[in-house]
């Protein structure tokens, strides 16, 4: 059952039970029979149970969008080791260019591995929030 369905189920339960209570009391008082009131109310409770408790499809009209499992496998969770710096101690005489290249590679790695899953997760958790704001 999705969120909208749960709210609907709760509202339905309260309204149905209250309505059946009023109907049962009016019928019982009108007929002058306490037993009739209890029987009508018991029938109402059973009917409400059948409508509200099982997981009917009409409670699931706004299903949650879960991440597809095959999609998740393509982007494994980032390991803690990838973010540790592999910076070598600056050595005198080495070309600065080498170090810069290495840093760039690391940046590129981060992009490929962790960023895609992060964006996907953001979309899931916050519904339709776009990046425009």
């Amino acid at each position, binding site marked *: 059952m999705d969120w909208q369905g749960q709210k609907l189920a709760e509202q339905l339960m309260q309204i149905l039970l209250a309505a059946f209570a009023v109907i049962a*009391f009016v019928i019982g008082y009108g007929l002058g*029979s306490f037993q009739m009131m209890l029987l009508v109310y018991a029938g109402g409770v059973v009917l409400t149970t059948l409508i509200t408790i099982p997981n009917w499809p009409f409670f699931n009209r706004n299903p949650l969008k879960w991440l597809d499992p095959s999609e998740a496998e393509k982007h494994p969770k980032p390991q803690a080791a990838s973010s540790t710096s592999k910076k070598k101690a600056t050595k005198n005489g080495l070309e600065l260019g080498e170090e810069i290249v290495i840093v760039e590679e690391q940046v590129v790695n981060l992009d490929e591995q962790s960023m895609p899953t992060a964006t996907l997760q953001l979309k899931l958790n916050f519904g339709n929030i776009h990046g425009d704001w």
Partner: protein
Amino acid sequence: MHSFGYRANALLTFSVTILALMCAIASLSDNLNSPSPTAQVQVLNINRFQKKTDGDDEVSMSLNVSANLESLFTWNTKQVFVFVAAEYDTPKNSLNQVSLWDGIIPSKEQAKFSIHTTNKYRFIDEGSNLRGKEFNLTMHWHVMPKTGKMSADKLVMTGYRLPVAYR
């Protein structure tokens, strides 16, 4: 409302609360009823009037108890308990009440009755004060509901007197 168990629990507690509310309103609806019962008790005969060996007086009498208690019944009445008591005073006690007969009326159809009976319970005094004693016969009734508060009332009939001498 997350799972089957949550919903079942919520429904159960809510339905029982509403049931309690319905019963309270049903009990309150009894106040709308204004009863008008009638009753009459005749003492047909004093069968025995002796002083027992321990010194107390005892009376055995035949009664004709008739009443119409139909207006006491509502939709919320389970039964009416009715009893007839003799009331008198003595030098020792300002009020003595002795129950002579009782009965249970289970439904409105049986609420109009006329019974010819001897006293169901023994009429024994605390002492020897009953010769020539003037007493009241009071009919009490307790209306027992199916749900809610029990109510009780009575009807006092005066003018009865016991004989002056033992027989």
